[in-house]
C-alpha cells in the first residue's frame, strides 16, 4: 500500500496541474508586421517611425468558450489598430504575461497576454505620399 501512495499522490498532482490556467497568443495569420524588436527590416537603424496612435491589445481567459472568442478578437483588434494607415505596422513596446490559479474550495483562474502597441507607418513625417 505504501508503495502505491507516492504514484497516486503524484497522479493527483498531475491532474491538478493539468487544470492550471494557460493562454497562447498566436496572430500569425495577420498580414501586417507586428514588430517587437527595435529593427524593422534587415539593415534598419531604427528610430524614424511615424507613430500614429497608441493602443493596447489583449486577450484573456475566463472559460474555454471565451478563450476561443478572444482568440478571434485578437486579430480584430489588431486590424482596427492599423485601419486607414498607409504602409502600416504595429510597434510593440512590451508584452505582459500573467497567470494565476486559486483554489478556495472551487477553482478560479485567470491568465492574460497583453501588448502595449503603437500604430505606426513606414512613411516618414513630411514625406510626400
Amino acid at each position: 500500500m505504501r508503495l502505491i501512495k507516492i504514484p497516486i499522490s503524484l497522479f493527483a498532482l498531475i491532474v491538478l496541474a493539468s487544470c492550471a490556467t494557460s493562454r497562447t497568443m498566436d496572430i500569425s495569420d495577420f498580414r501586417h508586421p507586428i514588430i517587437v524588436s527595435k529593427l524593422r527590416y534587415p539593415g534598419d537603424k531604427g528610430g524614424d517611425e511615424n507613430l500614429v496612435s497608441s493602443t493596447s491589445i489583449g486577450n484573456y481567459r475566463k472559460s474555454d468558450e471565451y478563450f476561443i472568442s478572444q482568440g478571434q478578437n485578437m486579430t480584430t483588434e489588431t486590424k482596427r489598430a492599423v485601419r486607414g494607415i498607409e504602409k502600416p505596422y504595429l510597434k510593440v513596446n512590451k508584452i505582459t504575461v500573467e497567470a494565476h490559479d486559486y483554489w478556495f474550495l472551487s477553482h478560479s483562474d485567470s491568465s492574460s497576454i497583453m501588448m502595449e502597441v503603437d500604430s505606426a507607418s513606414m512613411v516618414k513625417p513630411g514625406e510626400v505620399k
Partner: protein
Amino acid sequence: MKKFLLLLLFPFFFSSCVGGGARGELYFEEAVYPVSISKGTFLNETGTLAKESDYEVVGKFSTSYTAWAFFWGFASLENHIELGERINTQVKQAGGDAVKNLTVHVQAGLLNLTPVLSLLPFWPNTAVGTVSGDIIRYKLASEISVN
C-alpha cells in the same frame, strides 16, 4: 477502498485552499534582427512587405521564461524578461535574417499548486511560458529570379 479514495483526494484537499501566480513583461530590445509576431515582415525601408517567395524558413526559434512572485502572486518581482540575446544567438546559429510568427504562451507554474507550502506568503509563485517563432532568411535577388 476507502483508504484508496482518501489517498487520492489528499492533494486535492490541501490544494483546495491555496493558489498563486505571477506577472512578467517580455522585451526584445537587445535583438539585432527584426522580430515580428505576425507573418508580415518588411523587405526594406520603403515598407514593401516580403512575399513568401522572398524568403525561406531556416529554423525554429524557441525559448522558455519564468516570472516570479510572492504573497500568493500579489507581489510580483521585477519581471523584466529580456529575450533579445536569445533571439540573436539562435538566429545567428541558423544563419537567418529575421524572426516571424512569434507565438507567446503563458501558464501558471506548478509551484503555485504545492500543497501546504503554497499557503506560506514567502512561497515563490511562478508563471511560466514559451516563446517560439520561425527563423527566416531573405533570398538574394539571383535566387528569387531562378525560382
